[in-house]
């Protein structure tokens, strides 16, 4: 087994075990979406119109929920020192950790999204559009969020600092994710353009995220 696959396997295993936090994100997502109809009221047309935005916001917040532990847990138990010292480039190790986090915490959100779409009176086309944009967009959230998670280790602050750092960075993803999903519902706007930009955002974050996180971790070692 290569070092990277070992790292991915370990992180997924930890996330899926008791207290690992993979299911916490889905439960939080469920709670946010279930609360919305109570707040907005039983106007089905309004819910269907707001549906994509609500699902995207819920997924965004849920994916942030467990992200602050991405490096913090490894830092606290000393694993991070060994990862930095190892023969695996730190950038690749960061990318592997982000991928594992997305597989364990991001993918369940996408699987849950169609079910939650029912609660928001979304039709088939809208639900699949939201699921598709989430599939393409949530990796960008994880990989840009990883920069914040690395900074949280460097600055010895977890939790809220991460949200403050990462949420502004996730605004473009949110804009184009919701725009693409809305385009699938309302006729005149096109789906292709915002969806392509969403793909581009994800691809850019795959490149920038690991390098920025690794640089931040190297700075913050002490």
């Amino acid at each position, binding site marked *: *087994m*290569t*070092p990277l696959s070992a*790292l991915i396997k370990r992180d997924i295993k*930890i996330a899926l075990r008791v207290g690992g936090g993979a299911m916490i994100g889905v439960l939080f997502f469920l709670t946010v979406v279930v609360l919305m109809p109570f707040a907005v009221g039983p106007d089905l047309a309004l819910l269907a119109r707001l549906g994509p935005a609500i699902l995207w916001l819920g997924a965004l917040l849920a994916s942030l929920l467990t992200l602050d532990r991405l490096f913090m847990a490894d830092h*606290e138990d000393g694993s991070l*020192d060994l990862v*930095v*010292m190892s023969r695996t480039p730190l950038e690749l190790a960061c990318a592997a950790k982000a991928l594992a986090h997305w597989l364990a915490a991001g993918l369940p959100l996408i699987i849950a999204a169609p079910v939650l779409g029912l609660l928001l009176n979304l039709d088939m086309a809208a639900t699949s559009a939201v699921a598709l944009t989430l599939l393409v967009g949530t990796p960008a959230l994880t990989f840009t969020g990883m920069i914040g998670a690395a900074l949280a280790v460097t600055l010895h602050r977890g939790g809220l600092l991460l949200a403050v750092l990462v949420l502004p960075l996730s605004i473009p993803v949110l804009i184009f994710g919701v725009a693409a999903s809305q385009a699938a519902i309302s006729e005149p706007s096109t789906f292709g353009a915002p969806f392509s930009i969403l793909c581009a955002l994800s691809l850019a974050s795959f490149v920038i995220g690991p390098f920025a996180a690794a640089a931040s971790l190297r700075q913050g070692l002490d």
Partner: protein
Amino acid sequence: MRLLGRGVRCVRGGRDVFSDLDFEVAAGEALAVTGRNGSGKTSLLRLIAGLLTPADGSIALEGGETELTLAEQAHYLGHRDALKPALSVLENLAFWRDFLGGEISDAGVDVPPSLAQSLAQNLAQNLAQNLAQSLARSLASVGLDHATDLPAAFLSAGQRRRLSIARLVAVRRPVWLLDEPTTALDTAGQSLFSTLMHSHLATGGIIIAATHGPLGVEARELRIGGAAIRNDPAVPRLS
């Protein structure tokens, strides 16, 4: 092979911890780093491990593998055990073996696909057995082979230490950097560990250990931080 430090200076939090430190350890030698609390023993180990950068001077491994940095040829056994409580003893060790050990080299021999498949199956089985055996041997060498499936969360402090020592045995690295390695170990554990250190030195390894007590192997002593910590007049005193 020889580990060389020349004029090493360490600055932490804007204050000189130590400066002008020279040391030299040859293959098969152990160096015991001693000094008061706060004299910079851990800092020195982390400098050698590449986890801190020296403010001045240089640390280098001569005669090691040229393509690898010093850190990549070293094991660091710190205060923190680098164990995941959710994983079992065996899973913890297997992860570090896979992550630190790198890929298992396979010979590039051409064989027909059908044969290759059965060979691969055999090989995989053998390999898995061998790997499991080598892990079991590593665990046995630190006296933890009875607890392989126990989650690391339930280990005592001494057992956690034994498990992180098993990592040193599972993956071969020429340089061992040990930060008070015998903390929390019982007498049996200490004698096991001293046997491991002896065999590491006998195969040409290098050990640098920060320690207060006896290390368990013959070692030269490097005492750092002779001078007392001076009160810095620039720092306002609380009255």
